[in-house]
């Protein structure tokens, strides 16, 4: 009996260990292929060359165009989603009645549950043609439309995590604000939001990590042409979209072209790992309430 119990405990331990094995697997595989990649391409070229054309005969391996595509789409999404998410969070936690909150929150969360390929369809075939009515210069593939749709997609993530942070600010702080004669709006923004700031920042960083890792939406609507520009009206290729592009083709395994997806994948993984870790540490250390 005792032995069986210990055996079970060991089985459960193995289950938990799978998560560590997964991480080790990701790191080993990405680094192995990336090291092979850098045997043929110098790190200097990778970082400084301004062209990314591994699939052409005249090969260039500069990651800048892909980073630019990832940066522009994510920046649009965050600039759009952070103010809206924060406003919704303040409203839901400080102003909305219990009933209103119980209705609004699940509807907002539906936005996070929609598959990203659906957002891709929506951005390419609905939002882009609609935007073209106002911006005639907008290309069929562009960074603006998927950026905005991506913003709507990460809105629930920002609003619900920020709301949790705002909700946990102790009421004694608010009461102190009221006692000084501040209005409700003043208390919300000058006391509550400031006190909840670490949680809000952690939420925004997590949203940033989600945005740069988003794949299908940008692969469908931003196009698959590497383009070193900050102009959101042009088509761009993100890191993730490039991986999709290569995966759809018949690139033989073990070639340099095949290794490029692991090299850019490593850049993506390190970026999200960095952001996730900062977000986690902020939540662990600075959140006092």
């Amino acid at each position, binding site marked *: 009996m005792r032995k069986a119990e210990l055996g079970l405990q060991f089985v459960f331990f193995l289950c938990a260990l799978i*998560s560590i094995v997964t991480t080790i697997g990701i790191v080993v595989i990405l680094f192995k292929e990336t090291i092979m990649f850098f045997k043929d391409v110098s790190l200097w070229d990778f970082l400084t060359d301004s062209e990314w054309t591994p699939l052409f005969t005249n090969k260039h391996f500069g990651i800048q165009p892909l980073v630019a595509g990832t940066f522009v789409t994510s920046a649009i999404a965050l600039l759009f989603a952070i103010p809206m998410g924060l406003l919704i969070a303040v409203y839901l936690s400080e102003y909305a009645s219990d009933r209103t909150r119980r209705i609004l929150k699940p509807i907002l969360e539906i936005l996070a549950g*929609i598959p990203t390929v659906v957002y891709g369809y929506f951005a390419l075939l609905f939002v882009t043609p609609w935007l073209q009515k106002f911006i005639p210069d907008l290309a069929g593939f562009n960074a603006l439309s998927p950026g905005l749709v991506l913003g709507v997609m990460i809105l629930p993530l920002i609003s619900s995590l920020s709301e949790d942070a705002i909700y946990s600010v102790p009421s004694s702080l608010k009461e102190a604000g009221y006692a000084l004669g501040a209005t409700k709006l003043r208390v919300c923004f000058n006391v509550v939001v400031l006190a909840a700031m670490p949680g809000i920042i952690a939420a925004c960083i997590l949203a940033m990590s989600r945005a740069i890792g988003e794949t299908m939406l940008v692969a469908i609507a931003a196009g698959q042409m590497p383009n070193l520009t900050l102009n959101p009206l042009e088509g761009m290729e993100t890191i993730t979209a490039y991986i999709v592009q290569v995966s759809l083709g018949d690139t033989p395994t073990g070639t340099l072209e095949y290794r490029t997806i692991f090299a850019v994948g490593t850049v993506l993984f390190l970026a999200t790992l960095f952001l996730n870790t900062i977000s986690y540490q902020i939540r662990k250390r600075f959140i006092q309430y």
Partner: protein
Amino acid sequence: MTTSTLAKPLTFTGRNMFARRLSVFIFGFLVAVSLFIGFGTLLVLVWSVLSEGLTRIDWQFLTSYPSRKPEQAGILSALVGSIYLIGLTMIIAVPVGIGAAIYLEEYAAKNRLTNLLEINIANLAGTPSIIYGLLGLELFVRGMMLERSLIAGAMTMALLILPVIIIAARESIRRVPGIIREASYALGATKWQTIRDNVLPIAFPGILTGVILGISRAIGETAPLITLGALTYVAFLPDNLKSPFTALPIQIFNWVSRPQKGFHVNAAAGIVVLLVGTLLLNALALYLRDYLQKKSSSRML
């Protein structure tokens, strides 16, 4: 001079009141705009997909294989592929996820290994899905020589949704009051008997919510399957674990990427089927969570 600075905040001039009302009005207006954009997008998205694709859904669409001609194409292989894939993914991910959650909540000591496991799971939950695709490609497709098979897809997908299930199951197990465990020990039950007969039954609805959210995530995931090399044109049904396969979101992606309007209609119709699946599951999960919150606040402690 001192009197004036002291007195200022306490005077209520007309201009001051106006500024206050204006700022409240602006705040309300901006909140309304934000909510409108969020909900408006949802409505417009659903409407645009329905108006484009709803009329395309018929028996022929559900029971045909992909085709060069949009009006003859259907989602049979994609639908069946998705169902097999999700079934297999769950068979792998659910026991492992619940096992990991039981270990972390009930057995693990508070030490550095446990701390590392926690950070690691939080980080895996935030790792982009396409990275899992690269892992699956090297580990399952190439390393284990499973080729572009159903089982390789299911194992990749299982690793992807494992953090979702673990996090939900842990929270649910943590909410089970300590008194229940102590009562069970007092009656002479062993640790496993306590977990099996008392903790898991109480935690079950919460675990189920996590599992449903995991399924809903897995149904819509496209990127890792494309990286694995799931096929976009499959005119047969998978008949064993090592069969090549396609899945609903991949078929939709394939149709969206084509220039012809007829395929866009097919994509919209496929999206309607996909959305019905994911939204129903999400609604079920949200309902369960709401139901649980009400139940636990009225009964527990």
